[in-house]
């Protein structure tokens, strides 16, 4: 099956002008301006298959939103090629718009002054959705998003959580095969977040809707996406699964051991001879650190269980926040960082 989205060598340059300082500088700026090129998206290539849910993450100003704007056709790339749903987004914007849905967390796509249901009806007319289909879909959406309660409220009077639910529903009213979400859960409480995630998962499962979402909330990625792309300074640093990323960045694993009694500590200390770091947490619990290349976790656990009386064993997963923090701060994946894996793009 051909990919739904194909991006090749995508580049976006913005021209900004440097203001000179002071009054004299301001006068000079009137006559000659010093321009500077800023490359927001730098040679990005990827492709997304039908039904994939892809997380697109990166620090602020990394080029995520610029990419999304080019993918949705509202921004013209400086160079490179995009094919999405078989269209060139900005060249065939009007026809392409029929086949996609877009949610901007920071900006509603609904009409501000009119009631939600009027916005929906207008969308029905714009996308020429047959009445029966429209009603069926709306009642379906209502099951998860519980829209009915505020269907007649003007958008400007909705709370953020209510507005986002309406926005997500509005973007999917015409059942587009491709959905873009730019920070869909920003500023939402946990209930609203859950309801939107559940809804997106269901839509993806039932209709095979392909989704690309940017977020700063990494639990969105953990819950929704099988694949993530990390972008910084306009470049893709990583494109692959979340577990693979963690494994790649965290050569060191930790195993937490809770002992039955104090005397077992001596038994445990034996392991420190074999390339395993033993750290005391408190009297009865210890943390073992080891490198997966040197020590097989399964083997280690088997031996501990045989030789030491333990209450509990826990392999400690590195939280995704920590993984991502290391990437954003340049400790990992960046070309200039120490210990960079060269195979950052599997």
């Amino acid at each position, binding site marked *: 099956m051909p990919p739904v989205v194909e991006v090749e060598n995508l580049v976006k340059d913005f021209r900004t002008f440097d203001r000179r300082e002071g009054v004299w500088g301001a006068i000079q700026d009137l006559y000659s301006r010093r321009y500077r090129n800023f490359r927001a998206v730098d040679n990005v290539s990827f492709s997304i298959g039908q039904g994939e849910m892809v997380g697109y993450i990166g620090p602020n100003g990394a080029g995520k939103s610029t990419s999304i704007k080019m993918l*949705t056709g*509202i921004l013209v790339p400086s160079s490179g090629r995009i094919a999405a749903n078989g269209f060139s987004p900005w060249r065939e914007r009007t026809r392409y718009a029929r086949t996609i849905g877009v949610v*901007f967390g*920071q*900006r509603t796509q609904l009409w501000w*002054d009119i009631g939600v249901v*009027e916005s929906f*009806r207008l969308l029905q007319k*714009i996308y020429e959705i047959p009445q029966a289909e429209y009603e069926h879909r709306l009642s379906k959406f209502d099951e998860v998003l519980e829209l009915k309660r505020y269907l007649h409220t003007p958008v400007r009077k909705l709370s953020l959580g209510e507005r986002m639910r309406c926005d997500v529903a509005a973007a999917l009213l015409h059942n587009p095969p491709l959905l873009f979400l730019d920070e869909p859960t920003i500023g939402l409480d946990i209930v609203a977040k859950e309801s939107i995630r559940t809804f997106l998962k269901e839509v993806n499962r039932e209709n095979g809707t392909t989704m690309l979402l940017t977020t700063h909330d990494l639990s969105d990625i953990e819950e929704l996406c099988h694949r993530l792309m990390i972008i910084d300074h306009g470049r893709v640093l990583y494109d692959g699964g979340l577990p693979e990323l963690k494994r790649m960045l965290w050569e060191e694993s930790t195993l937490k051991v809770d002992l039955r009694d104090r005397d077992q500590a001596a038994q445990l200390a034996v392991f420190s001879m074999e390339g395993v770091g033993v750290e005391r947490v408190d009297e009865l619990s210890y943390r073992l650190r080891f490198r997966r290349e040197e020590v097989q976790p399964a083997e280690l656990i088997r031996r501990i269980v045989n030789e030491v009386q333990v209450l509990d064993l826990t392999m400690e997963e590195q939280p995704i926040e920590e993984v991502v923090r290391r990437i954003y701060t340049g400790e990992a994946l960046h070309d200039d960082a120490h210990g960079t894996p060269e195979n950052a793009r599997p």
Partner: protein
Amino acid sequence: MTLAGWTNFPALVEFGKIGFVNMLAFRLRYYTGILTYFINVTVYYFIWRAIYAADPGFAGLSFDEMLTYVSIAWIIRSLYFNNIDVQISQEIIEGKITSALLKPIDLQAATLARALGESVFRLIMLTIPSAMVLFAVYRLHLPANSLAFAQFSLALLGSILLVSAINFIVGGFAVKMKSILGLLRAKFYVMDLLSGLIVPISIFPSPFRELSEWLPFQHIVYTPLMLYLGKLSGAEAWLALGVTWVWVFALIATGSIFWKSMTKHMTIHGG
């Protein structure tokens, strides 16, 4: 100019309804609007009375005709006036334009539909009440004849579209500018002057009069008024009406091409 996004009439009608309904929020402004228009015409009444006292044959119009000109000019201004230049430029500057760009409908078509919806509202809430007040207070001419009134009405529909098409283009310049207030204000005064709202085009001094012959603005007020007063009749009237509508289509086509090139330069901030 492609027709994609122009052919979805149910959606355009819906945009027209939104234009109408949104005006309801400003109801109070229309009651004060009627008063403002009445005061405007009254000021002109005294100015023109002074001028006609000195020269009764001024500009080839009688005093009553001139008073009718001024009154009807303000009455129709209440109909064709809209703010879409301000609205579009704001949407561009605030970045709200993205939601319009993401819909499979032509922004210009939707904007014109909205403007027409607004005009229908103004007709009911402002134009007809103002006309009733002014006809009651001043001795105004009725249209020259029923054909003249029909032609006047067609010209009026043309002037609503002309103003909307011009405003759409002017508002679109916001893509290229950081601040568009100066341009909006300049357009506001140029349109009021060159449309013939303030004084009839026929009394413009020579180079300006000929210049305005070649501009679309005079078809906003001057041409409909000349039709109303019966100063244009027969072939001349149809010609003037034809020129008005050629301008309507030319400006809509220009706006469409202009908007297409502007969207290529668009930088959407934030988000």
